[in-house]
């Protein structure tokens, strides 16, 4: 595989560029007014600025859906691919170019329905990337169809008398897969928490899965309405190794101390509950990463020709 640590061009050359938020702003976002995706985009641009990520070394990968327009609105490299298939493309990018920072944005249909197979296996691969599930509980771009995370009895255009099934829980699903290494939940209407969660995900070495509760003003306005208006509907997971924003203590009084190193407790806390729990459920940097397991020597063309000639010797007549 290609390893671009220090190329002749950049080695020893001081990169004194400083990036402002505008340097990360791509096309004007065309999401609906009031869509939660706007605030996620802003938080992400803020993160890149704070981390001073080089735009050319950063790749946003997405599938298809409202949230998958994300890469177009960033001024980085982007890969806007197929519905449900963001993760395989991102895996290929990271395998070929471990030097790049890779972010994946998916919606709930993308990640939990058509792309569910890739999601499960990507957790196991644990490739180093930030994976955001922008969960508005509904298919938005195709205009209001039930998704796997739509709450039971909530109506849509395909299930007008209410969703027949209980909603899939992306947190328990992720935490249940072997080799899960980072699982967090945040909400787009709490910008400080959103930002800190994205930051923790970025700093995690491995597959950092963040479910972002996201309002859709058109199709699922009611779902998060209470949670937005009543801070009591939220329960913060706080810990020295997790996220704790003292400024929010006044507003979000329901708090629970949770050590992100405790997987059993993380699974218990991820189970359905009458409040939305936000914070880092689980973090473990000791999990093996696929790109490290598959790291191989870099061979020159001449070395490969020599080795292939030895192969031909085995098959020589």
């Amino acid at each position, binding site marked *: *595989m*290609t390893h*671009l640590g220090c*190329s002749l*061009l950049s080695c020893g050359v001081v990169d004194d560029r400083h990036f402002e938020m505008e340097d990360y702003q*791509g*096309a004007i976002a065309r999401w609906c007014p009031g869509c939660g995706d706007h605030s996620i985009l802003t938080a992400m641009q803020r993160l890149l600025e704070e981390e001073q990520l*080089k735009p*050319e*070394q*950063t*790749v*946003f*990968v997405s599938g*298809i859906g409202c949230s998958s327009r994300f*890469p*177009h609105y*960033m*001024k*980085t*490299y*982007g*890969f*806007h*691919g*197929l519905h449900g*298939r963001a*993760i*395989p*493309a*991102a*895996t*290929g*990018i*990271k*395998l*070929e*170019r471990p*030097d*790049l920072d890779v972010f994946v944005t998916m919606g709930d249909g993308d990640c939990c329905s058509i792309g569910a*197979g*890739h999601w*499960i*296996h990507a957790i196991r691969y644990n490739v180093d990337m930030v994976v955001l599930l922008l969960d508005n509980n509904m298919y938005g771009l195709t205009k209001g169809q039930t998704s796997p995370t739509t709450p039971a009895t909530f109506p849509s255009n395909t299930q007008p008398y209410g969703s027949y099934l209980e909603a899939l829980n992306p947190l328990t699903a992720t935490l249940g897969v072997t080799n899960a290494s980072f699982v967090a939940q945040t909400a787009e209407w709490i910008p400080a928490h959103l930002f800190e969660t994205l930051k923790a995900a970025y700093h995690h070495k491995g597959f950092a899965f963040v479910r972002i509760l996201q309002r859709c003003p058109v199709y699922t306005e009611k779902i998060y309405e209470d949670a937005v208006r009543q801070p009591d509907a939220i329960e913060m997971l706080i810990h020295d190794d997790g996220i704790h924003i003292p400024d929010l203590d006044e507003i979000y009084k329901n708090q629970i101390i949770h050590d992100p190193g405790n997987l059993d407790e993380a699974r218990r806390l991820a189970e359905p509950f009458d409040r939305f729990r936000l914070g880092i459920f689980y973090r473990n940097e000791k999990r093996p990463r696929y790109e490290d397991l*598959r790291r*191989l*020597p870099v*061979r020159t*063309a*001449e070395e*490969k*020709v020599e*080795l*292939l000639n030895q*192969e*031909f010797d*085995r*098959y*020589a*007549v």
Partner: protein
Amino acid sequence: MATKTRASSEKKKGPGKGSKKKGPEIIRVPETTVEIVSDSGEGAQKCGQIFGAVCAKMGNGAWTVEIIPAEIQPPARSKAGGSGNRVRFGTEEITNWGDATNLVVAFNEQVLLGRIELGALAEDAIVLLDNKWATHADEDIQKEWQGGLKELAKHDYRIVEVPMEEECLKIVEDPRRGKNMFALGLLAWICDRDVDLIRAQIAHQFRRKGEEIYQRNVELMEAGYGWAEKNLDFRIEVPTIPSDVPKVVMNGNEAIGMGAIAAGMELCSMYPITPATSASHYLSEVYDKFGGVVHQAEDEIAAVGVAIGASYAGKVAYTITSGPGLSLKQEFLGLAVMLEVPLVVVDVQRGGPSTGLPTKVEQSDLLTACFGQHGDAPHVVLAPATMEECFHSMITARRIAEAFRTVVIVLTDANLATGVQPYPRPQLDARWQQAPVSLPPVDENVPPYDWDPQTGLSPQRYPGQPGGMYTATGLAHNAWSKVAYDPDSHQLGSQMRSRKIAVLQQTLKPPQVYGSDSGELLVVGWGSTKGAIEEAVDRAQAEGLSVSSCHLTFIQPLQPGLKEIFSRFDRVMTVEINYSDEPDDPYITDENRRRAQLAWVLRASTLVDVDCWSRVPGQPLRPGNILKAIRQRLEMGAKV
């Protein structure tokens, strides 16, 4: 030419063996076909592979075909469960599996009867048959054996009963593990094979099993050799002409794997599927030391997605699959075309549709390879015809994929994948390797799709290039890769992606005509049928028939000059391993006749009334059957 084992036969002393009995009958032939068939799991395939490799190493031309049941362990002693290997070898080059088998070693009479029902055996074939069943404890089996012998007696075979089990029991406790090596010894004596080479090949075949296994296998082989020498009264002599051209011998999947390495590709992203998987097995064994990765993805779609992601970010990656996998990958192939991300896809074709004939050959993915994506997705389809071409096609495929920023599908099939053939050892060139990705800064005023309006070509841009940030998108887009729904942008994008393929076509050479360059009939083929078609054309010409052939390597775009070549013949027909209606089938008219797949393409692109003859037997085509079709079509007269 068709060759019978009785082509020339004389009695003479065995070659320097000092045999006390009268020397064996020597059957001297320019070529012969040998097969070994057993229940699945008894190792006949391994025996045949070793025998074929030894023939090639001795300087014979050779072509081997695996006899494979679809199940891993089908019921024992069943006609459909036969497993083994068929080796056609000769003094000169062998280009296909031929017509019928001249010498068979069978481990039981049922698998032999299965092969006879398939028409695999020559009328005068010699059969060596394990006779343990005559005295088997199970009376039903004894009865089956007796019935089998009666059935065999209806034919003109020369049958030799061999106490294979009894002899093997002198060496091993479980003859199911080892009878194949005894059989190898029998064949080695009969065909006068170099025993040192056989020992070396056994060592190679069992390289991961340890010294003890090797020794026991050699002992069994030598026992077979000794038994044959003592008890058989005939030998088959196929002269070898040592060649001064260095050669290698391998199957098509190994050639694909080595070709990928030679092309500098370092990521094979795949999902297991028969008959493609053995290429990944080969690569998995050796790729690490080349710095290459076989990524076994969670499914066919992820496999191609990972390859496209890697190609987008750096070097051209590839995926290896078969028909059902190709169907699943189609959406991603359209994306790669739309994004202009280079990609190589190998489709080792098998019988379809659906699960079809998973282990058996067919050429029925041609149309789906060309047109399987929704929307207009112009790309390249290549079809190697030999093991040697399998190797070189990967180098060509990568270069085209990269230079034209498109998808290249390489169509091989189960016949190439599992068959073994010697070919001249390639002279490797370090320039075939991909250069490391270079990441110079990009002028911000240059769009990511900086299409040359004449050619549609534009340089690829990689993450890491400062100033070059853009979002590759599967949505309709303009040169800046901005989503564009206006009529002009989609027209322009479609035109640019299509134009590249025309540019490629202009660089191709017209195909060569095999035989006379004009005449009554031109047979057109593609892929693994080349050897069989050309052998049939040779035989037809020897009969005085006016027939030539022409084999296409590029299916999309087609090579130039086809219309002109076709105009020199009274009649043109394709010969393919996919389904077509026969002109005289019930309900079939010239209007509703569904033609073989290449014929569809040729008719559309040349406006010539191209006929076809095709079959889907789950086997390679036999030269003799192609010859019959040639005769029949010539009787029908001119049709152009």
